[in-house]
């Protein structure tokens, strides 16, 4: 187990292409950190730099306070679980798991005991003599994890390890990995583009876009207080609704006005609105999550929307509605009376809404 420190880490390819730019992060001993972002955001490149599979163009990576920039992958004492498993096809499951220990000249009895105990933890005991080709995707993934845990490395690195599995197996393996982390209390860095995986597995998330870290924080902290519009949109499923509109000041009240939408901002947001827009007449983006919009049940201000699509998920219904030219996704209870192509009255919980700067996407409040 170890700490991991990234200081101004960058990866620059030929032609000054920055795949990763100035990443700073401190990962504590035993922490489960998720690198999350869309495809091509540099998260896998960063993970490969931590592993020593990719050269570090700028900055410093330290494992347990020791700078490892010049240390070969095999000497960093890390384990890496690949997206495509990367199991040695000509070796049995036991040989695959034992390979790293053999390379490090462990005693035969020690290798056997470690392989057997890892196989037990992962439910692979009966498959130890099989070749990877004779295993299912989920079993192969377990072998890849087993190969990592037998080594008892300082640091576990996972590169989208569940993306080749079917949906059901992914959920099972997700739970198993969480359990494994609890059991091992090891430092783990996990790359994924799946924000559900990120939210459910990590102690902390590092959200990346275009090679740049957008926000680092606990999953709920990021969900509730995104640093910018990108993070707000990326974390959460269905994603946050964004309404581009004018900020208007009428008397003492502040409004966000868009095509068919006229939203009076709650009192709690006034100070920020006043300092950011002085007298109004500026553009901004209002962000509101689908669960913060409700069907009107009593009195109060509401917005009339047209239901375009209803997705019945059993426990809830995801409704895609339109207000003028704006599309809004709403999470409705399973027993909703809403009908496709009918009007629906929606109430926005604006206390929970976010406002973003139009030009930069930065969160205002």
């Amino acid at each position, binding site marked *: 187990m170890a700490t991991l420190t990234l200081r101004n880490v960058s990866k620059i390819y030929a032609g000054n292409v920055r795949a990763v730019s100035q990443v700073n992060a401190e990962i504590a001993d035993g922490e489960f950190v998720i690198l999350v972002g869309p495809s091509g955001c540099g998260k896998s490149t960063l993970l490969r730099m931590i592993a020593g599979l990719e050269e570090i163009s700028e900055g410093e990576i330290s494992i347990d306070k020791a700078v490892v920039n010049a240390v070969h992958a095999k000497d960093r004492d890390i384990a890496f679980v690949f997206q495509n498993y990367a199991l040695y096809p000509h070796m049995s499951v036991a040989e695959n798991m034992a390979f*790293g220990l053999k*390379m490090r000249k462990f005693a035969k009895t020690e290798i056997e005991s470690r392989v057997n105990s890892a196989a037990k933890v992962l439910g692979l005991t009966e498959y130890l003599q099989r070749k990877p080709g004779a295993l299912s995707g989920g079993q192969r993934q377990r072998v890849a994890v087993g190969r990592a845990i037998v080594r008892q490395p300082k640091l576990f690195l996972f590169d989208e390890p569940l993306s080749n599995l079917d949906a059901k197996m992914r959920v099972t393996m997700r739970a198993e990995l969480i359990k494994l982390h609890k059991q091992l209390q090891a430092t783990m860095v996990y790359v994924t583009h799946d924000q559900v995986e990120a939210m459910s597995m990590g102690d902390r998330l590092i959200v990346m876009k275009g090679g740049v870290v957008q926000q680092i924080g606990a999953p709920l902290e990021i969900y509730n207080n995104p640093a910018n519009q990108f993070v707000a949109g990326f974390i959460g499923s269905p994603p946050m609704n964004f309404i581009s509109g004018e900020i208007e000041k009428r008397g003492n009240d502040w409004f966000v006005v868009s095509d068919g939408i006229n939203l009076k901002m709650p009192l709690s947001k006034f100070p920020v609105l006043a300092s950011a827009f002085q007298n109004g007449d500026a553009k901004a983006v209002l962000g509101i999550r689908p669960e913060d919009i409700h069907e009107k049940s009593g009195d109060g201000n509401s917005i009339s929307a047209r239901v375009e699509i209803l997705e019945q998920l059993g426990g809830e219904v995801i409704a895609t509605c339109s207000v003028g030219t704006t599309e809004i996704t709403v999470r409705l209870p399973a027993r909703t009376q809403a009908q496709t192509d009918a009007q629906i009255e929606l109430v926005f919980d604006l206390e929970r809404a976010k406002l973003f700067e139009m030009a930069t996407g930065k969160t205002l409040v």
Partner: protein
Amino acid sequence: MTTESKQKAYFHYALALFVTLIFALPLLAMLVTSLRDPAKAAAGFSLWPDSFHWQNYIEAWRATNFPRQFINSLVMALGVTAGQIITSLMAGYAFARMEFTGKKPLFVALLATLVIPFQILVIPVFIILVKLSWINTYWALIIPSLANAFGIFLFTQFFQTIPYELEEAAYIDGASRWTVLWKILVPLAKPAITTLFLFTFIAEWNDLFKPLVFTSTKSMRTVQLGLTVFQEQFKVDYALLMAAVVFVTVPSILLFFLGQKQFIKGIATGGLK
């Protein structure tokens, strides 16, 4: 199956049978003649054995120094084949996986050597061998053929099909580049190794030109050379001659049957990627 597709199938089988016969006929003629009465065989050709003269084989084996020639051929063929597999594996790995200046032009130059026949190189090689005093030694039969562009090309193509992650996983597991090559990639390259083994072994086993030029003593004769000498001695004794030819041909045929599955897999692998 419709009548039309049945007819088509019959036609294809008939065609395949016809082509098989064309290829099998010389082999059949060889086998039959090798078993015929030498006097009758000298008198005329027949595809049907009138009698089974197994004695022909014993006489042919005794008539010339076949055991020694078999050993010479084996040493040459196995030596060259093993050498070519090792050099091709390592060079193929370098071309497929390592970055170095001039890699592309070097690879093109290497492929270009495929069009240069050995006959063009024979004089300079002969001069070198004379200077090294290697004429009439196994070195002369083995060393000049140790590297081969076809083998290197085959392994380069093969290694390019193996995912990088396998190697990276091995590096993280603590393996060196050398270990990765021999413990991870080579076991995966079995089809390519079998292909090169069969191609090279059969080519070397059947080679007449190299031993003819680089050796002159009786004790260094290979089977092909021995066969030529045998042919001179037993010009009209077709039965004995064919018995000797059977001896020489059997190892190639046997090897092909043994490695057929891997061989075809290897050709497919090399051809597709």
